[in-house]
């Protein structure tokens, strides 16, 4: 009863937030709706007794990442309505629709396979848990310990690979900014120096995200 009502309220917040993200004309309001949506997801995590995950959701996504979005929006002054006719990548709309329908189909397939009760559906989507996983997924251990055991034990290679990938991306970003070798007048040069400082900030920001994730 309590679970169901919490789920309905937070699901409504998630969906309304998601609608707000795609329907707001103003980027800042879209970002705000995104925060609301993230909050709803965090509440759902609490409902599943994944306390750590829910707060990480708030800290990383609700806090750091959307703040970064807003920072960029405000700094670049793009908080105006955009011309939606321009399509930067050819056919991206169709691809987007296709991906959305496909994702929805996967979720629905899981739901239909599971039928009432829901246990089978989870198994159908993720496979039967191995003995080792079943040992980790034990209701008595706090979720932070379960996550740590899984992430730094079984999946440590994937974890490190992700970290490496993020580092490569940030180094790439720095290289792209640094390689703008064109003669600049002194007044502009001071400006670009400030820019390059910004980019080094971003580098470390991403490093921070990497630590968080």
């Amino acid at each position, binding site marked *: 009863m309590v679970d169901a009502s919490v789920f309905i309220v937070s699901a409504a917040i998630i969906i309304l937030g998601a609608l707000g993200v795609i329907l707001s004309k103003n980027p800042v309001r879209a970002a705000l709706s995104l925060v609301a949506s993230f909050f709803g997801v965090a509440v759902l995590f609490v409902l599943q007794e994944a306390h750590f995950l829910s707060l990480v959701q708030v800290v990383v996504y609700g*806090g750091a990442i959307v703040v970064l979005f807003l920072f960029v929006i*405000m700094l670049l002054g793009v908080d105006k309505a955009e011309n939606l006719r321009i399509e930067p990548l050819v056919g991206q709309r169709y691809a987007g629709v296709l991906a959305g329908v496909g994702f929805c189909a996967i979720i629905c397939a899981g739901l239909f396979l599971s039928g009432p009760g829901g246990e089978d559906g989870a198994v159908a989507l993720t496979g039967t848990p191995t003995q080792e996983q079943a040992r980790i997924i034990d209701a008595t251990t706090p979720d932070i310990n379960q996550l740590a055991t899984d992430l730094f034990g079984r999946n440590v290679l994937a974890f490190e690979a992700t970290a490496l990938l993020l580092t490569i991306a940030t180094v790439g970003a720095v290289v792209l900014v640094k390689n703008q070798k064109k003669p600049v007048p002194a007044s502009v040069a001071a400006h670009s120096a400030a820019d390059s400082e910004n980019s080094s900030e971003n580098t470390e920001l991403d490093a921070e995200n990497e630590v968080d994730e």
Partner: protein
Amino acid sequence: MGDPYLSDGVDLGDVLLAAGKAVFAFTVLLVAVMLMVWFERKVVSRLQNRIGPNIAGPFGLFQTLADGIKLFFKEDVIPTKADRFVFQLAPYLSLIPAFLTFTIVPLAGDFSPGGSEGRVVIFGRETFMQVADVPVGILLFLAMSSLAVYGVMLAGWASGSKYPLLGSVRASAQAISYEAALGLSLASVLLLSGSLSTNAIVQVQAGEGFLGVVPNWNVIVSGFVPFIVFLIAGTAELNRPPFDFVEAEQEIVGGYHTEYSSIRFSLFFLAEFMNVVTLSAIMVTLFFGGPAGPAFGLLPGWVWGFIWFFSKLIVFLFLFVWFRAALPRLRYDQLMDLGWKVLIPLSLVWLLILAGIRLAQPDENGVSLLQVSDNPTINTAYFLGAALSVFALGALLLMVASKNARDDRLKSMGLKAVAIESAEVN
């Protein structure tokens, strides 16, 4: 784990108790804020050789109340260019996180040896003297401090005017920069306590310390560095002097709250002081043992906890006022340098060192997690050496990198020539 009164189902009484605790904590916080505003004005005045508020009430104690009433009756102005909805929402976005953080702070309780481990009995229910003992306790503080920036950011943006926008861009940059240092210095404490729950963190610190005389406070056990980093990063998160770029009145008028008036302005004002009290309370909890301290009889044990907690709190409140009166504002690039090039690497390295020691130390069975040598001292020295050499390597890399970046910058600005000329003159 968790508050004892919630362990066996939830009935109406439990709900009422939770609500009562929330109301009590809110009242305590509001009164503390009121006194804090008075305290700050009074202390800053004395430090500047003035008298400060002295008319309203004894010692001017009611000055805050008078100001609050005045603000309530002022006209509420919303600029024409403002985004009305966000403009009206923003003050609450900065007020609510400030209060929510306070809910995880243990305000009182008997943590002395042989005491009740912080439990008290209220209306026949055993509970802790804090609104909520969340299993992920201290992460809530991080989450709320990362949300608090929304109020400031959105206020500045929604005002639809230039200086507030500058203030909010500064706020977001500052918050992102210093949150990392804040989180990393926190991690060192969590490493020592082995728990995220604030009650457990206080519990560990209430234990017997070095030689039985020195308190087992995290500030000492973690080697002072995390505390200093936390204090600096915390001051920056609060946007207090010397890091008050967000509302630097000499540069950007009033920053994010320039366009606010009446009750909405007072909400920002309230949130700011609430944050000061809350952060001080968090620091007392994390580093100075919270309400833990000896009970001397006469009064019930939990009252001694209350007394200890508030005496420690006042020290920090004074510290923040002192900062304001004594330290000039940094330059913006100094702020960024301090955050990114000093505090984050330092806290990262300190975490590494503490983790190294932790790995090497034998547990109660005499076996350490990682064993290189059978001699515990050599084992510890080994890991400490490894951590320190990583530190040295990192420091070297950082120094080389920042020197290179600086040279590049000077070259691109055409300043290298100047440097060489002056060298030739010398």
